């Protein structure tokens, strides 16, 4: 089950996901057959210009407290004013995740004391969030060669809009904490809720694991916690309902010192905010309502971009590429557009082009930590190179060489480089014949082997010819000639 909370932190969107991991048990003698159950609470920052409840700017790396309004500083007499853009973002997310949107949702206060929460509470949507009951279908590559597409689903419990706290900098030396109320760090944060149980039996006590700073650590933290809980139960102990912090250095989770038993957040309705209403379509708008005061789901639905899963399927269908390639294309910003632009400019089959895009181009980009938009080789330039290869002007290995050269001297075209460095395929039969003859004459043993039936030795002779021609010999022709000469 996936639960998502949209959290706006000094404006953030927060998604809470709960996912069931039915993993195999790692310990051999396990009569309890315990499996882990995992819930993820994901906090994602909404991409908006201002904060959730105030008109202060949302920006990174500004001087501390420079983007803080009186409301953000929790000064008495200030009131929250909801940002329309955040509501739209929440609805968009809900639609992308197939949730049911609550026409009416409510805001609550969640109380706890911490220095970076000056009000003493955060405004959230605990009772009735903006969206519930979604589903996310995703694919991953599995199988022995990691090229099998495995489809999985995860249920989303809810999406809620939520304020977040400020940023705390702990100064252990001077025993103090420095508070910056601009925003909390991290555009995406995940907390994991982990428990173990025997399938079929009720769920076990869960712990909350915080301080997970990357997706790689997420998997490790969860694995560790599942194993830790299994060991506790196998020893005859009980899992405590507590909050634990993940320590990436040791790979362990440790209890957090500030948490004393179960937190009582004393949830209460936010008295300063009426219920949030979203409308299904324009027809359901009350008469006389100002358009900028209404969030209409249908409008947002129409404005949704093509979702990644849909895009991947479309690419596979349209171009006949492998699913694993579709993942690579969709996961890199701008790569699909690049790929499609190359296809427009060349007659070469998509299946033959894809390798160049996912290996040569992407490989070079990654090496220099560049984005697709920064590529020194443009789609038309790559298309020209591929055309030259396709039409037999250069061999495949030379094509790769030329690509490197094009990369290094950005702006230089394939044909120019081929001409300058004389990399064109040698198809002059007379010349090839004489080179082949030379090789055949100087390798009588190999020729004998071929005549006796070991055809593979021909490849060695081919290699020698290519060496002579610096890789510029047309391999098809060379093979023909050699076969003739060794028959």
């Amino acid at each position, binding site marked *: 089950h996936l639960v998502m909370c949209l959290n706006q932190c000094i404006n953030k969107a927060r998604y809470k996901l709960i996912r069931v991991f039915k993993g195999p048990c790692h310990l051999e003698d396990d009569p309890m057959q315990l499996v882990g159950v995992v819930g993820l609470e994901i906090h994602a920052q909404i991409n908006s*210009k201002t904060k959730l409840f105030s008109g202060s*700017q949302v920006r990174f790396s500004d001087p501390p407290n420079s983007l803080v309004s009186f409301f953000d500083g929790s000064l008495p007499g200030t009131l929250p004013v909801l940002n329309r*853009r955040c509501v739209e973002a929440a609805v968009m997310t809900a639609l992308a995740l197939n949730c049911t949107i609550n026409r009416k949702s409510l805001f609550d206060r969640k109380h706890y004391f911490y*220095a970076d929460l000056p009000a003493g509470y955060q405004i959230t949507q605990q009772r009735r969030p903006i969206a519930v009951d979604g589903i996310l279908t995703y694919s991953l590559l599995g199988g022995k060669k990691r090229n099998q597409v495995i489809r999985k689903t995860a249920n989303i419990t809810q999406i809620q809009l939520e304020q977040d706290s400020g940023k705390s900098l*702990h100064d252990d030396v001077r*025993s103090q904490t*420095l508070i910056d109320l601009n925003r909390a760090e991290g555009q995406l944060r995940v907390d994991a809720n982990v428990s173990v149980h025997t399938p079929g039996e009720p769920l076990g006590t869960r712990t909350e694991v915080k301080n997970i700073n990357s997706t790689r650590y997420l998997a490790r933290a969860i694995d560790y916690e599942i194993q830790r809980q299994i060991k506790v139960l196998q020893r005859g102990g009980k899992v405590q309902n507590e909050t634990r912090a993940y320590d990436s250095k040791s790979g362990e989770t440790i209890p957090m*010192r500030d948490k004393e038993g179960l937190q009582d957040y004393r949830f209460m309705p936010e008295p300063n905010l*009426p*219920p949030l209403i979203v409308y299904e379509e324009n027809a359901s708008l009350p008469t006389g309502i100002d358009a900028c005061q209404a969030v209409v789901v249908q409008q947002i639905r129409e404005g949704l971009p093509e979702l990644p899963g849909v895009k991947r399927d479309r690419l596979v269908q349209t171009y006949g590429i492998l699913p694993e390639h579709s993942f690579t294309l969709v996961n890199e910003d701008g790569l699909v557009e690049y790929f499609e632009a190359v296809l427009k400019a060349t007659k070469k089959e998509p299946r033959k082009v894809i390798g160049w895009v996912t290996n040569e181009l992407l490989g070079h980009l990654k090496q220099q930590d560049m984005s697709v938009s920064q590529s020194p080789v443009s789609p038309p330039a790559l298309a020209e190179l591929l055309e030259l290869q396709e039409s037999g002007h250069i061999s495949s290995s030379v094509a790769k060489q030329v690509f490197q050269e094009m990369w290094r001297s950005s702006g230089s075209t394939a044909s120019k480089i081929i001409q300058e460095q004389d990399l064109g395929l040698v198809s002059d039969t007379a010349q090839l014949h004489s080179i082949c003859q030379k090789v055949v004459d100087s390798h009588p043993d190999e020729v004998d082997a071929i005549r006796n039936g070991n055809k593979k030795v021909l490849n060695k002779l081919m290699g020698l010819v290519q060496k002579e021609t610096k890789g510029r010999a047309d391999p098809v022709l060379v093979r023909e000639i050699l076969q003739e000469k060794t028959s």
Partner: protein
Amino acid sequence: MPWLVTEKHPAFVEPVDERRIPGGPHHSCSVSVQLRTTQPKGAFEVIECCVLVCSLCASPHMVVSATGPAQIPADLVDKLERLALVDFRTKQGLGCLEKAIRFADQLHVVDTSGIEPMDSVLEDRALYLRSDAVTEGDCAEELLQLSKNTVEEYFVAPPGNIPLPKREERAAILKHSEF
């Protein structure tokens, strides 16, 4: 009988206990009322109440159980103190707490069956949606002036959350205070 029962709480249908209630501010007479005690909820006995209207002066009087002070367990007091960060463990403090609970019990008089709870008086208002444009901020100096302790445009707070000392330790700390 000078008292007229105008609103009856369902609990009174099966009275279990009988109490003598001293008269309200308008009368010196006392009245016998049968009250029902509900199941104890946690530390507190939730006693149902009713409003009795005096037939002499027609003024309503609240009747609440007079079974004596609720026994609030030390653990719960401890928890409340941690949640509110307020020390109220004195006889006076606990008495005040109990009175507050009794006062809140008046809510039970109202029959709310079949009625949707109201959690905001703004429930019929339209929630105003602000457009996503920058209109405030950029007042760090003003805000920082409000804090006693600042360091290079940061507010300064004590390190993390200082855990409250355990109950016994707190009792020792308070022993010599005027509270």
